[in-house]
């Protein structure tokens, strides 16, 4: 009794010392664990890959570099890559920022719908998008007819060119910029814009001088992802570049990998290193841009429109919806109509329409349901893991910027920039026998896909979380600390509610991209672990185009359902959980 009393008496003092010791322990443990995990999951596979480029039969050599770099073709490829990525990233930036600005600040109607429409390119499998666009622009299409009917000498653009590739890539990846920019724009305090207008600047100047620089963290974050996505994209350069004979790094790497020479992998690894360097340059550029940007002081999200389009509202809405419907209608309609046909190339008419493809997909083929199940599981797992780990990483990166955390951001970006096939190979190298002679059985099961997906898509979440975190002033956290909340409580009650919209956009991206992932899974999947992407790919390869389109249609409908329910969940969270 006496003892307890004394203990209580000495309470504060002993608490301090005991806790401070513990705190110190924890402070070291979390970064240490993070570091180890990062090294194992991100650094090792890449190191393994790079190592390959320097060796010939396990003997170090420069030979592959000498060979590849002295080849004039390589430099041509690098040049193509450079222009393609530059052009498409620019397009994604302009389109993404403009749409984000319009949707967040203007009084345009049906914002939620626009939001979902913008995300469509992430839901429709990318090969279908490309295919349908090339069909649209071919000579016999209704679109060409329409253009000829118009006065003047307009012709459907030739997509099998560098600008064509930029266009398709830009169109596919602008949602990345859009999503990240929206998150930031909402957080810019109205007051800062007011101050600029009181200083006499009109809307244009305010946008250029205030809004744009303040939104830079989001724009640059989304822009970097679009850049990386453009860099690693294989489908579009393969589809459009082969007929146009334009080779970029991702297709060149594929050509090397499938070439069956003894040094095929080594040469592919050399090209991958080149690609990695370009990716790092992009990341570096983004840092330079962001170096001067500062955190905003409020974290309040203002969803009220900030300016009125006035008389322009209807025309602007018409243009925006025209654009959105056009760019999603083209692939969707081609996908849906193909899925309803009994055979490829027949005309669309009452006799040729059939639902048998759907019946087959939904009820007769056992693999499809398994694939949906697997993809759903993988997407949920990846999104969940990335949400937690990515946010922790982003937190340290934003709040304690240091060489270490910057490096961590960098390495998580690389797996996203590498072409899928290269990453898949690196995963095999790293995970089949993590320690020579010991095969833990990760490879050959669904485990390897779980790891590969997280490795590949983590950066989407890291960027999303970083953008969100940069909008929350430190004083919000400090106020929580003096109120006695830390760790879990602080996150649940203060940080998450403030961060959620930003976190969600990252998580949504991770979820959507892993849900339809193809290249990595096509190398790493194993029996019974087929994914949606692989299944569609199989149908396509075997010439069952109508099955693949039917399945794609099912998947798109499913995804729209998922997005819808996520939006709903967010609403409910906003209404209920946060307010408690």
């Amino acid at each position: 009794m006496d003892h307890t009393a004394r203990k209580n008496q000495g309470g504060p003092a002993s608490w301090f010392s005991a806790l401070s010791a513990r705190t110190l322990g924890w402070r070291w443990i979390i970064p240490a664990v993070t570091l180890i995990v990062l090294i194992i999951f991100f650094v090792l596979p890449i190191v393994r890959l790079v190592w390959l480029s320097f060796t010939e039969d396990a003997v170090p050599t420069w030979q592959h570099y000498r060979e590849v770099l002295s080849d004039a073709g390589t430099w041509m490829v690098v040049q193509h890559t450079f222009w393609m990525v530059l052009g498409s990233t620019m397009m994604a930036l302009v389109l993404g920022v403009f749409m984000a600005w319009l949707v967040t600040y203007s009084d345009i109607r049906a914002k939620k719908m626009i939001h979902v429409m913008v995300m469509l390119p992430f839901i429709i499998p990318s090969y279908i998008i490309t295919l349908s666009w090339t069909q649209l622009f071919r000579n016999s299409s209704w679109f060409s007819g329409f253009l000829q009917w118009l006065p003047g000498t307009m012709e459907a653009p030739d997509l099998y060119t560098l600008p064509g590739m930029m266009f398709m890539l830009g169109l596919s990846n602008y949602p990345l910029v859009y999503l990240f920019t929206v998150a930031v724009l909402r957080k810019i305090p109205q007051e800062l814009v007011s101050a600029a207008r009181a200083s006499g600047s009109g809307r244009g100047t305010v946008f250029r001088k205030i809004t744009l620089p303040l939104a830079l963290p989001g724009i640059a974050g989304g822009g970097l992802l679009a850049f990386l996505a453009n860099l690693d994209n294989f489908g579009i350069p393969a589809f459009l570049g082969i007929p146009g004979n334009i080779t970029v790094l991702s297709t060149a790497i594929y050509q090397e990998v499938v070439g069956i020479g003894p040094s095929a992998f080594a040469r592919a690894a050399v090209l991958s290193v080149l690609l990695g360097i370009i990716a790092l340059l992009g990341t570096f550029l983004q840092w330079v841009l962001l170096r001067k940007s500062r955190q905003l002081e409020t974290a309040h999200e203002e969803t009220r429109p900030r300016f009125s389009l006035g008389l322009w509202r209807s025309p602007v809405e018409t243009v925006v919806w025209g654009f959105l419907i056009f760019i999603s209608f083209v692939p969707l309609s081609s996908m849906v109509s193909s899925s309803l046909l009994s055979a490829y190339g027949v005309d669309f008419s009452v006799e040729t329409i059939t639902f048998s493809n759907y019946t087959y997909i939904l009820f007769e083929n056992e693999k499809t349901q398994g694939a949906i199940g697997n993809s759903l599981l993988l997407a949920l797992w990846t999104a969940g893991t990335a949400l937690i780990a990515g946010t922790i990483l982003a937190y340290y990166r934003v709040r304690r910027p240091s060489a270490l955390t910057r490096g961590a951001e960098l390495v998580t970006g690389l797996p996203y920039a590498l072409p899928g096939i290269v990453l898949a190979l690196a995963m095999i190298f790293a995970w089949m026998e993590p320690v020579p002679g010991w095969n833990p059985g990760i490879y050959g099961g669904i485990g390897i896909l779980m790891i590969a997906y997280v490795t590949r898509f983590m950066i989407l979440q890291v960027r999303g979380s970083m953008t969100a975190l940069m909008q929350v002033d430190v004083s919000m956290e400090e106020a929580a600390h003096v109120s006695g909340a830390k760790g879990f409580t602080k996150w649940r009650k203060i940080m998450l509610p403030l961060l959620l919209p930003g976190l969600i956009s990252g998580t949504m991206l991770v979820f959507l991209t892993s849900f339809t992932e193809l290249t990595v899974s096509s190398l790493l999947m194993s029996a019974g672990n087929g994914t949606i992407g692989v299944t569609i790919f199989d149908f396509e390869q075997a010439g069952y185009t109508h099955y693949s389109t039917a399945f794609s249609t099912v998947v798109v409908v499913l995804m729209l359902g998922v997005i819808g329910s996520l939006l709903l969940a967010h609403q409910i969270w906003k209404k209920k959980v946060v307010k408690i």
Partner: protein
Amino acid sequence: MSTLLQDVRKTFGDTVALSSIDLEVKDGEFVAILGPSGCGKTTLLRILAGFETPTGGSIKMDEVETADPRRIVPPEKRNIGMVFQSFALWPHMKVKEQVQFPLEYHKYVPQTLKKRKKERVKEVLEMVGLEDYADRMPNELSGGQKQRVALARAVAPQPSLLLMDEPLSSLDAGLRMEMRREIQAIHRKTGTSIVYVTHDQAEALAMADRIIVMNHGTIEQMGTPHDVYSFPQTEFTARFVGKANMVPGTWTKEGFHPLSDSSISWPSTWIAATFIKNGIFPVRPEQFQLNEGGEGLKGEVVNSQFQGKEMHYVVDVEGHQWTVHAPADVDVSIGEEVGLSLAGVEAPGRNSAVSVSS
């Protein structure tokens, strides 16, 4: 620039922030808006700037209609400058860039200033004492430094209407005095109209040509500092501006009997009719004289605060707690019995028109 507000109202949902404001700010006038927290000062200023659309009423600037509930002239088309209560510094710009910004974009900057932007930036930064901070970013400044940058930014382009929302609240007394002088100098030199929002009556009294006392979204009283201070029309103004104690009692022909104690009579004076009707004599703390001997109303000292040159006492007289300011050499302790009498009551000056608000 002259500004005319007629029947301006503003509501946020259910909250009435402003109800029926009629106000004229003449060209070159320095008007202070004085009122307690939440009375609608910032809202009024934001309506003047063009950031809020009034729910009702109209605003004319230089005879031109600039706002009614349907359409407003946007802020950038008005020849204004504004200091925001929350500073609203742009986190991505250096101090000197913040100040240079309006010089570049403000539509009405005199050509002479446009030509020497860099010097002008230097000039206003010197004026607010931040010449050494030109290259800092906002997050490297202290609260008061931020506020001074906001001030410099607003005055740099010499707008013809300057709107200031508590521009000195984060400054220490010395700096505040200095800034007051600077603002007065700007006002004199450029003849710009100034609407100055503050909750600090000393600031309003010292600087303004005219004071608008606001409460609960309405104007309680307008007038010169002297009028508002010495001849409050309402209890609120008396309390808020003069921190007056409301002494209840009886008004008779000869004067006022505090607490209806007929043995004491305070001289009749110019006083608003409402007070007479309500049987109240407003006494400012320094009008009371504290008699250690005990003459006058008997009371007990319940609180004392040291204020350097004077002492602030709270004296309990029959359950009423009145504030009394006494010279520093009057030294009574808490619990002591004292007497309170009236020190001196002045008459309105010749040229001060006592304006009676509705």
